């Protein structure tokens, strides 16, 4: 194990994959100077401007180029800078990348990774703070990943680059400096497996990305109160680890899903609905209110799904005088 940051883990993963496979390349704005968050630092020096490509401010072209380049035998890693700007390239991602393999009857594949830094961070306001994972999960053809730790950011990014289908890769802006243990050995994650952070029999708590850390804090608080939370970090949103979630929920009899994205029609709804359909146990969801992200800190704070809010929701769910399987 080595200690490194979420940022450094991502950088390392990309460097390792680029060394391993000459077809892997990265494209995006300002990559030569390390990218907006330093997550590409040093890569252009190592791999040259042909494989770490500085692009014009042309999000639609960046994505379209990646689609064409993937169809033509390379494995592009697309940097979208802020996930919000990916909205300038949605036709390219959803109507082209996600569908090409299918529309062409399997004649081609589109092995690309779209990196989209998500989430609220330093008063970035409405056009630089979104988390739209629910959108991507809804689109056939896409794989959707959202690492919460340095180790996962290394292992999942490597898996994403090796995936033969388009992957939407959501890194949380608040996590870049987060330090954690990363295995010495080159680990490639198995996509679709949740990670259990804590074992418990009282309540299942499912989360992903930065909210995992609030969830872990809430679980700790609840543990002090004698409530044992089974905490799962989903990591992969499509495919998602239905088996793990259902096993846990069936065992605990209660489910809470917590995410940073807007609660209404968020991906929490899919998980809660699935668990409700399959198990009929009490469920609850936490997410941001349906509000664009405001700039001012006290306003931004209104939208945050905090450890306190998660713990409170858990207490409320446990207080319901129902439970177990229906």
């Amino acid at each position: 194990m080595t200690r490194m940051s979420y940022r450094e883990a991502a950088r390392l993963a990309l460097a390792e994959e680029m060394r391993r496979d000459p077809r892997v390349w990265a494209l995006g704005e300002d990559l030569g100077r390390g990218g907006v968050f330093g997550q590409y630092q040093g890569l252009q020096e190592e791999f040259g401007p042909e494989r770490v490509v500085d692009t014009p401010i042309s999000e639609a072209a960046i994505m379209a180029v990646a689609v064409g380049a993937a169809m033509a035998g390379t494995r592009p890693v697309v940097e979208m800078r802020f996930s919000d700007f990916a909205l300038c390239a949605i036709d390219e991602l959803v109507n082209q990348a996600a569908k090409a393999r299918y529309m062409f009857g399997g004649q081609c594949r589109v092995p690309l990774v779209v990196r989209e830094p998500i989430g609220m961070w330093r008063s970035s306001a409405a056009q630089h703070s979104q988390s739209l994972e629910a959108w991507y999960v809804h689109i056939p053809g896409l794989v959707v990943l959202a690492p919460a730790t340095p180790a996962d950011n290394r292992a999942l990014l490597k898996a994403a680059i090796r995936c033969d289908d388009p992957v939407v890769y959501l890194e949380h802006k608040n996590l870049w400096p987060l330090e954690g243990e990363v295995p010495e050995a080159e680990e490639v994650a198995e996509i679709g497996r949740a990670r259990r952070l804590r074992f418990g029999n009282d309540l299942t708590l499912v989360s992903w990305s930065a909210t995992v850390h609030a969830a872990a804090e809430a679980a700790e608080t609840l543990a002090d109160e004698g409530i044992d939370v089974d905490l799962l970090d989903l990591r992969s949103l499509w495919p998602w680890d239905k088996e793990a979630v259902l096993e846990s929920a069936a065992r605990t009899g209660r489910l809470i899903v917590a995410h940073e994205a807007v609660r209404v029609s968020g991906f929490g709804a899919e998980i809660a609905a699935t668990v409700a359909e399959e198990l009929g146990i009490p469920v609850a969801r936490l997410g941001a209110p349906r509000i664009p992200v405001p700039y001012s800190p006290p306003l931004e704070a209104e939208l945050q799904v905090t450890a306190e809010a998660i713990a409170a929701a858990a207490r409320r769910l446990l207080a319901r005088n129902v439970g177990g399987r229906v």
Partner: protein
Amino acid sequence: MNGSAAPNLDRDRLCRLFSVMVAIRRFEELALEAAREGLVKGAIHPSIGQEAVAAGVCCALRREDYLLSTHRGHGHTLAKGADPFAMAAELMGRRPGTSKGKGGSMHIADFTVGMLGANGVVAANIGIAAGAAHAVRLLGEARVVCCIFGDGAVNRGPFLEGLNWAAVFKLPVLFVCEDNGFAATTRTRALTAGPGPLARARALGIEGVSVDGNDVRAVADAAEALLAEIRVGGGPRFLYAETYRLMGHTQTDAGAYRPVAEVESRWRLCPIARARELLTRAGLSTEEIAALEAEARAPIEQAFTAARAAPWPEPELAWMDVQDLGAEWPVTAAEIRL
């Protein structure tokens, strides 16, 4: 095919271009017929009247070159060498179709001949073509990428972004704007400001030429010359070809928004008729020309006959080729849905 831009009276070449045009025309006629009979359910966009662009440009490409096209892409695809039977079957949604019936006319593609797809989104292939060319460069291949789009496409953002990209990275792409005068039911010129597509390309750093898109020899000459420049590393080039859409936008559009007289006068400029004249001048007899035509039509007619008899795809096929990880399967679905 020599790289010269000068008029070329080579009979064989002209015969080949002519045959390709005739085949395309026949394909479109039979596709329309099949549509009338309800055998083609989705929209088709016939390219009747525009065959010279397809033949002139695509016959100038090598098999290993990539081609990207539009919703009006039957002609380009045939000229690139795709199997007409698989194409006809695709239009009818049959199992042996190029995309197993999953794409239909607007998503015609044949990767075995380098045809990377039509596209249902206007202008979307421009950036994708730049990307294919970027891959060609990265992989050190010798291919050229050809991207054909309509006059309507020059008003979409991807035109600017894709051309700028290709120019900045000096990529081997031939952009072809096939101006048939219309974007669906609208005369494109009225909604396209400035001096036109070629001027836009030049402002984006891409040189090119303008040709009479109904003169197959002129198109072929221009395409060959531009491709030669691209092949020696000259970067992207632009070909602007003016032609006319003789039919409606789709099989259900009568094209009533234009005067009958205009359409009639344009029929007189039909590129196949004009090529026939060139062949006559090149010394072919009426019988020889008729024989060429019959020969070009026959495989197309066989293709449609066979396609009409081709089997439907098995319903399970709907579930395949979505993605490897996280694919849903019929068994799951049946459970979910019932």
